[in-house]
Structure formats: structure tokens, C-alpha cells
């Protein structure tokens, strides 16, 4: 067994364990922290696969931005723990059954039946440098890149509108500050 397989095994074990921890832990703050571990391990796997740009984007975007947003919302709403109430009858059993069936199916068709038995060889040094990815993004994939920026803009505007208080400030309120109603928030 080569050292690469041993390293992969350890990382995969940590990834699966942290994912299971996220699934099991009752406190959603702990779930978010388990998610950070999982994202970091997957970033290391990206580095092993020769994708340094994606690995660091994973750390900044997922572990840095998205999980912090999660933690912020959990702490703002104060819903780290939900009051315990029974799930729908038999839901847990059916969910586990569906999961096992899907996993078996995925294992059969992806691992054994696909015929993909090759080994991932070490990619060339200049295969996926940030320069190469930037070059591809701004030449071949310019249109999707711009579409992504539009999606992000729409998401920002949507998030602001969704969390905006119902009563918007009209021009009259600005002109007469003394008569402003205190019904915001």
C-alpha cells in the first residue's frame, strides 16, 4: 500500500467522521464547526489532486464565508437547539433505507460497473495554476463568469429585500422627521 493511499484513507476517514458528526450533533453550532473540518479536509484533497486554486477558494468561500454566515444566523436567531418533537412516524427508518439503497446503487454503478479502474497520476506542474484557471475564465468562459457576477448581484439584492423591514421609509417621513412612526424592525 503506497503512502498516497494511506494519506487518502486518513483524510477520507476524517471527512466521513466530520460529516457524520454534522449529521448527528443536536446543537447546530457544533454542526457548523464539523462542517468547517469537513471543508478543510476536502480542501486538502483538492491540493493532493493538484488543484491549489480550488483548494484555497474552498477555504475562503466555504470555510471562511459560508460557515461564518451560518454561525452568524444561528447566533442571531438563537436557535442552536430545537425543542425535541417526534418526527413523522417511520420517517427515520425510511430515510436510512433510502440512503442505504442510494449508496449501494452509487457504489455498484460508479465503482464497479463504470470500468474506471485507472489511477490518478500526478498532474503537470503548470496544469492548474491560478494563472491557467484565470486565463480560461477570462477567455473561454467569459460569458458564464459574467453571468455568475449577475447571479451574485441578484443574490445580494434579494437578501437585502428579504430581510428588509416591512414598513419602508417614505419621502414624507424623511421630510418631516418629527412625525415618523416607530414601527420599523
Amino acid at each position: 500500500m503506497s503512502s498516497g493511499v494511506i494519506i487518502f484513507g486518513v483524510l477520507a476517514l476524517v471527512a466521513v467522521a466530520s460529516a457524520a458528526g454534522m449529521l448527528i450533533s443536536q446543537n447546530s453550532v457544533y454542526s457548523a464547526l464539523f462542517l468547517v473540518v469537513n471543508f478543510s479536509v476536502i480542501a486538502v484533497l483538492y491540493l493532493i489532486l493538484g488543484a491549489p486554486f480550488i483548494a484555497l477558494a474552498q477555504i475562503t468561500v466555504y470555510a471562511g464565508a459560508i460557515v461564518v454566515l451560518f454561525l452568524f444566523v444561528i447566533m442571531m436567531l438563537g436557535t442552536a437547539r430545537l425543542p425535541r418533537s417526534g418526527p413523522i412516524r417511520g420517517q427515520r427508518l425510511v430515510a436510512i433505507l433510502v440512503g442505504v439503497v442510494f449508496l449501494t446503487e452509487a457504489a455498484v454503478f460508479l465503482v464497479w460497473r463504470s470500468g474506471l479502474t485507472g489511477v490518478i497520476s500526478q498532474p503537470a506542474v503548470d496544469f492548474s495554476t491560478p494563472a491557467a484557471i484565470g486565463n480560461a475564465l477570462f477567455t473561454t468562459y467569459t460569458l458564464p463568469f459574467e453571468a455568475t457576477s449577475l447571479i451574485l448581484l441578484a443574490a445580494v439584492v434579494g437578501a437585502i429585500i428579504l430581510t428588509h423591514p416591512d414598513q419602508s421609509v417614505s419621502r414624507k417621513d424623511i421630510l418631516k422627521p418629527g412625525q415618523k412612526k416607530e414601527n420599523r424592525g
Partner: protein
Amino acid sequence: MVPISYYLGLSAILFVTGILGVLLRRNALVIFMALELMFNASNLLFVAFSAYYKILTGQIFVFFVMAVAAAEVAVGLALMVAIFRTKHSVDVDQVNVLKG
């Protein structure tokens, strides 16, 4: 080096964990986290095949998936906050009527 089938297996396991998270948990925020886990499982496969076939397109696609996932989380969490304002709960069992 590592065979591609190992990555396929790991990705399948992580994806099923995400599915179980969506099906089993009732906290809407944890359901979102499980969604992110499924995104990550598919991203891992994209990068693995990108390294396997020596084609850069897989990594470009992962970049776009990350951007769209960030947008999705921003809107989704804003929806969570809006729902919490009316329902005072993020339990998905409580969110069974559209009327606010």
C-alpha cells in the same frame, strides 16, 4: 497514487450523508449545511475527474458551483430570517402553511 474509484466511493458516502441530513434533520439551518455537503461531494468528483483526464474544465465548473452556492446560501439564510420573524422557529415541521 490513488485510484479514481476511491474518490468515487468517498464522494458517494459524503453525498449520502448529505441526503440523510436533509431527510432526518428538522432544523432548517442544518438542512442547508447538508446541502453544502452534497455540493462538496460533487465538487470533489469534478476535481478528481479533472485530475484524472487532465482537463481543466472540471475545476472551472467547481469555481462556478462555489459562486452559485454562495449566492444560494445568502438568499436561503435571508429566507430563514424572514421565516423566523413570522414563525419564531426554524423547525421545518412548523413551516407548513404559506400564509405569513
